[in-house]
């Protein structure tokens, strides 16, 4: 080895990139591991129990009522668990890294702040995707199982083949309604938006509790604001103050009703895919803007 070799090697080293997908993915997978270590997936047992309980309970009802209730409870539970996961797991990300001093170790290395934030958010998205996918699979298995049982019962009840086919078709139509997949997809999208909002809040929050309370407030306002708007607009007599208040609320807070079609999906409404794509586009815009705002705040944050 000559004396000049180390210098030549240094020249060959690839320059430090401002944006690296490898770094982001590494932080994301690390975030997912950290979240998994907090035993966050234990909630799946509770979800399983909820499903099992509702299935046993709805056994006493007619097949129409049974499927309706099964879907109501399962999609409702998926919605609640995904909301809780999105808010609670994101709210603790930054404060814990600051408390453990992991954040300083990471940022001391050549890792830009935006890579760190992107990786953290992506890690939460992984978690949400895995959780919602597992819950959806459990739900679909149960629904298919109950459908099979009801079809078997129909076979014993009807002797006329035409009547049997008609009854089986009715059972199938009641079980797997067309918009079910779109409903599940939009639950995931809503959870991702909530995670992005929570990360934004936690980037300037002074405590975990503040982030969680504020995120739930945003969630509630996000659902109520469009109903309030509709109610006031239908009543017709809006004063200037109400108009200003409504406009400010609509501009600042996300309209989460845009991503809530579960109530209509469970009753069998079909959702056109072009509409799902439009809502997906809107959801992506929400996530990007909240991410941009988080980066702006985190960049100027004194650590």
């Amino acid at each position, binding site marked *: 080895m000559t004396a000049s070799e180390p210098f030549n090697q240094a020249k060959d080293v690839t320059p430090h990139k401002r944006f690296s997908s490898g770094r982001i993915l590494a932080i994301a997978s690390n975030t997912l591991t950290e979240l998994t270590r907090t035993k966050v997936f234990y909630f799946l047992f509770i979800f399983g129990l909820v499903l099992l309980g509702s299935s046993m*309970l709805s056994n*006493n*009802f*007619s097949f*129409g*009522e049974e499927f*309706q*209730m099964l*879907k*109501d*409870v399962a*999609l*409702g*539970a998926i*919605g*609640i668990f995904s909301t809780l996961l999105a808010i609670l797991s994101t709210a603790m990300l930054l404060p814990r890294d600051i408390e453990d001093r992991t954040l300083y170790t990471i940022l001391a290395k050549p890792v830009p702040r935006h890579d760190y934030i992107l990786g953290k958010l992506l890690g939460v998205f992984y978690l949400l995707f895995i959780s919602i996918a597992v819950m959806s699979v459990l739900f679909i298995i149960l629904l298919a199982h109950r459908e099979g049982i009801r079809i078997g019962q129909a076979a014993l009840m009807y002797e006329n083949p035409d009547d049997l086919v008609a009854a089986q078709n009715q059972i199938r*139509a009641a079980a797997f309604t067309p918009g079910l997949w779109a409903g599940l997809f939009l639950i995931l999208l809503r959870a991702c938006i909530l995670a992005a909002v929570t990360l*934004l809040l936690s980037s*300037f929050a002074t405590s975990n509790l503040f982030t969680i309370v504020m995120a739930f407030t945003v*969630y*509630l306002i996000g*659902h*109520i604001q*469009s*109903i309030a708007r*509709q*109610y006031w607009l*239908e009543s017709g007599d809006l004063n200037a103050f109400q108009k200003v208040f409504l406009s400010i609320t*609509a*501009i*600042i807070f996300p*309209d*989460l009703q*845009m991503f*809530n*079609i*579960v*109530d*209509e999906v*469970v*009753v069998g*409404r*079909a*959702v*056109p895919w072009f*509409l799902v794509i*439009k*809502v997906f586009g*809107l959801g992506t*815009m*929400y996530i990007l*803007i*909240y991410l*941009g*705002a*988080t980066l*702006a*705040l*985190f960049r*100027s944050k004194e650590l």
Partner: protein
Amino acid sequence: MSASTQSCAVKSRRRWLSDGRVLAGALIVIFGLVRLPIEKNIEGQFREFGLRPATLTLELRERLGQSAFIAALGGYRALVASFLWITAHVAWENTEWGRMNHLMQNVVALQPRAWIYWDRAAWHMGWNASVWVRQHGNFPREALTLRAERAYYELALDYLHRGVRNIPEQWELFMTLGHLLADKMNDPCGSSKAYREGSQRVGAPGYLRRFAAYKLAECPGHEQEAYKELRALYLEGKEQRLPTLITKLRELENLLAIPASQRLISPSPPSSPENLNPQKSENTETP
């Protein structure tokens, strides 16, 4: 203004612009202004495809209680409706009809597009509650029993009418309406109309057309019209020639004194044992 003051002002403006809070706030506000028309457009399309729930009223807030109302507002109206339905089921098991009706009114207000709730609510009121009142009402006079029964029929009718207004495409609701008017309210004309409406909906079973014709045959003044319909059904083919249809046709041909040459059915029933009483035959259908 001195040069140093000017430089301070420029620096302060730059600092202000590079402040993350200002940038974040600006991003959110600008995005809020941009997305409003987009959301309005999507909202309009949601309404066009019937994907928007009905408005929650303040009256419902009073009836549901605060926690359930907030859950419903928070995007979980289907879940709240489901739990209320289970509670209504328990009330049914305890024959608490008033409480049951109250709960079911809340369920249908929360989920007005779930036909199953309208249908079952009407069934509980029109069949279960009304029969219970007759058997266990212990009213001192028959007139009071009849009035109580009638009240439950009216409740069932109200559920079905509202259900049909909310989900006009659901044939099942028209069928139950037809059953209620025929079996409980002695209104064959209204029943026939309900069955006919139902038969015109997508996915409606073929027997609704026959039910409509059977009930029309019982509707005073519409015998000729009913005969035409039953005849048309008979001529459609073998699958329509069920014992009830044949019996009704025979009755109408006799009633309308149709000349023998134009009759489809012989004036008297055949003597084979299974056709002696078509009402009890396997293929007999009673609306």
